């Protein structure tokens, strides 16, 4: 992966190369500089049930963080003891409401990171109260632990302002998996919203075994609120390519594709739409918002992908399938998710994306018409982040 802070050869004061296409991402300076993620946002880190009284180590936007649960509450501290640089996540709790470094027993208050005791220097240790480790705001939503990475010590915005609107105030069931993946988070995000890739890359996936996907679309990007949407004005299921021949994703064993354009569900027009999903009035089935949240709306469920920056070369894929159902349908959804969706959609299908994200090496890049989805996302990120910095 190449990006300017991490050593993009196309930048860094050198004479730009004369190759065709876009040589760098200098059009989007904030986005270009966000190789390790955008600060000032909440990020899902792990499942809530994985955080216990034994500290766990995570890397988020290049920062090492220790998570621990105490009295039912999750706390996040910078995972480095200022004494000798040992990860606090290797330590444990010696007193309620604290975390002790495994090396010399430097003990930190979980609420504010203050050094509240030094076990090996006695009760009256003079350094007590003079050292702090950074703490981070933590919230639990959707069965996950979310951590806010501040820009400069500011108070976080309410997490519900950042979650997809339909997930705030509605009951739902969800199934999901969290996978560490290679590749920069921006490549993962761009891949998720990439107009052109699914029809070709995923045509062989088992998830799409019985459903044809279009060959190509005429797509435009619509902005609504804090989201951008891909809106399909024209959908083509096969096409004649001059000089090379005909190409189609249609096969005799796949369901017959619908007539005309559609903007809910990525393989065809819906028969019946879940009332919660219908009430959202999504202009298009694929939408994206900061800081890298993809939403794919199907008639009866919504799939989300959160691309969580780990460092410049790794990200965390948080894939979540949500169904706004209740009662016994909950068990049916659990069975469907654990029996099929988890393996086929969040597994093999999404694995094809992971493969491409790991292989992507841009800029330089030569974009084509469907890449309006990529540039629209970069514009959104650039504008939103500039606004955030200005606020």
């Amino acid at each position: 992966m190449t990006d300017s802070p991490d050593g993009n050869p196309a930048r860094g004061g050198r004479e730009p190369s004369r190759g065709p296409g876009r040589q760098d991402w200098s059009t989007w300076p904030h986005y270009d500089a966000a190789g390790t993620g955008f600060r000032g946002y909440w990020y899902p880190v792990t499942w809530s049930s994985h955080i216990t009284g034994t500290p766990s180590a995570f890397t988020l936007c290049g920062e090492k963080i220790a998570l621990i649960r105490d009295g039912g509450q999750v706390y996040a501290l910078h995972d480095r003891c200022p004494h000798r640089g040992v990860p606090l996540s290797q330590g444990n709790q010696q007193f309620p409401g604290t975390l002790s470094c495994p090396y010399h027993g430097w003990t930190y208050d979980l609420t504010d990171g203050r050094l509240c005791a030094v076990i090996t220097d006695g009760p009256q240790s003079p350094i007590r109260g003079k050292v702090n480790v950074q703490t981070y705001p933590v919230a639990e939503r959707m069965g996950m632990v979310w951590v806010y990475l501040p820009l400069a010590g500011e108070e976080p915005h309410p997490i519900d302002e950042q979650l997809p609107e339909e997930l705030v105030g509605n009951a739902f069931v969800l199934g999901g998996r969290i996978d560490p993946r290679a590749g920069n988070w921006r490549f993962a995000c761009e891949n998720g919203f990439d107009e052109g890739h699914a029809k070709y890359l995923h045509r062989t996936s088992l998830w799409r075994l019985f459903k044809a996907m279009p060959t190509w679309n005429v797509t435009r990007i619509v902005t609504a609120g804090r989201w951008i949407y891909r809106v399909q004005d024209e959908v083509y299921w096969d096409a004649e390519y001059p000089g090379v021949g005909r190409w189609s994703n249609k096969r005799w064993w796949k369901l017959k594709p619908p007539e005309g354009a559609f903007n809910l569900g990525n393989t065809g027009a819906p028969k019946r739409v879940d009332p919660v999903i219908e009430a959202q009035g999504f202009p298009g089935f694929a939408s994206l918002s900061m800081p890298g949240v993809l939403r794919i709306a199907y008639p009866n469920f919504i799939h989300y992908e959160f691309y969580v920056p780990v460092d410049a070369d790794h990200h965390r894929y948080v894939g979540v399938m949500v169904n706004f159902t209740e009662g016994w349908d909950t068990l049916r959804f659990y069975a469907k998710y654990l029996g099929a969706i988890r393996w086929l959609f969040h597994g093999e299908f999404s694995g094809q994306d992971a493969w491409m994200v790991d292989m992507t090496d841009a800029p330089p890049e030569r974009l084509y018409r469907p890449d309006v989805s990529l540039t629209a996302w970069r514009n959104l990120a650039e504008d939103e982040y500039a606004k955030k910095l200005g606020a």
Partner: protein
Amino acid sequence: MRSRTLAALLAGAALAVGTPLLWRWFARTTNTQVHRINQ
């Protein structure tokens, strides 16, 4: 008859103890979860 009842009881107990353990192992090793979120 008594041995059949005992076997059924043992199998039931193994299932009652084993299923949550198996689920915990699966959820942790595959980082997979299912949840109901009531708001």
